[in-house]
């Protein structure tokens, strides 16, 4: 019986892309340069309350520990 190559390849691709999406949603690794520009700009233009933080993909704000030296 031939192994179902297409099924195995399909499952592997689904697993890979699920992992990529999970990285984006649960494990943002916001580096200093991105943070310096984007977060500062976002805080200035953020439609929420003053001092609110930009949202990650899950909808949760960035944590203080993720803001680094650029926290306002």
């Amino acid at each position, binding site marked *: 019986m031939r192994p*179902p*190559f*297409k*099924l*195995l*390849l*399909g*499952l592997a*691709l*689904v697993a*890979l*892309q699920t992992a*990529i*999406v999970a*990285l*984006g*949603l649960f494990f*943002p*690794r*916001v*580096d200093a*340069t*991105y943070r*310096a*520009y*984007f977060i500062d*700009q*976002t805080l200035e*233009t*953020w*439609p929420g309350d003053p001092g609110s933080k*930009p*949202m*990650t*993909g899950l909808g949760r704000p960035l944590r203080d520990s993720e803001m680094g030296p650029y926290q306002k």
Partner: protein
Amino acid sequence: MRSVSKIIIFACVCLALRLLLYKLMAIPFGGLATAMCQYDCGWYVRLAQDGYGSDSLYANYLAIPNWAFFPAFPLLLRPFLALTPGMPLFTGLLVSNACFLGFAVVGALYLRATRPAADPLLWVVTLIIFPFGYIFSAIYSESLYDLLLIASVLMLAKRRVMACAVLTALLCATRPTGVLMLIPLGVERALYLWSHRSDADRLTHLGEALLPVAIAPLGLSLYMLDQYVQTGDALAFNHVQILWDRVWVGPYRTIADGLAAWDWYLVLQPKRIYSLSYDAAWALLGLGVAGWIAWRRRFTEAWLLAASILLPASTALHSLPRFVATNPFFLLAVFDLVSRLNGRLAVAGSFAGMGLLHGVVLVFWFIAANSVY
């Protein structure tokens, strides 16, 4: 039935005539390449030359992030720009117009598959003359996107699902709305699986169903992975939209607020002063046309038009005129309407009207009036 070679030659001649006319009209505006390069054109050219993260206009890494612009079109431009240093705008124009030609020809093949009685040469003329069609000749991703989208839908109509999946993957790397093609492909594969539910070799059929659906979003997934590696945020392309005032509020809110603004007087104002009512009207026009297409039982086309409006309209209204007017299924609907006109005089009259409007909006484009963006 018109041969493909005849359609290609006809499309080449029509496009060449259009570009010649553009060139003459662009003389007071700095020449064709300069006049055609408005708004996002600069983003794409710099992106193709220098990549993501930085913007060479600002010459340092802490510049405006260009991750909002998906990579397929810049990647397509890149080798051509490398071959012709010193003339990026002209080269970019050639690439966009080549994609536009591809869209016209593949669109004609799609017509042959879905509307056998339609005249493909009339389709080409409709595309060339349609008032907002200048976007396809500009250095924008619209021409590549429409080529890939119509090709994906054509492959799906012909049941060539692997080809559809690969084209959808490229589509997902071209614009965010490329993911909308996953729905028709997914539905088709689900129906395939259902029709083979009683077959003995279920694993094979499951693989046949799953693999195309797994390939289709690869363009977006790989871009997300690249953004994670470069910035630490796989969703940077989404988060950076706040710099364009795009915040998720839902399409009803944006369209209702747009109409309530009643700022039609802004339509002819110069750059960056958007008329929300004008943009909202385009959204409603597009949704109305999608409803008409659905009523004619072309559900895939209706979905790909309606969703392409509702998704961006959920965050903001600007650019909606362009999104609607360049959607291939909106253009097919325009063609369907033109085809229904009785008599050559009526068709010629409609083309004359469209041509006149095309000239007017082209000048607006050259001066970067916001109503055509």
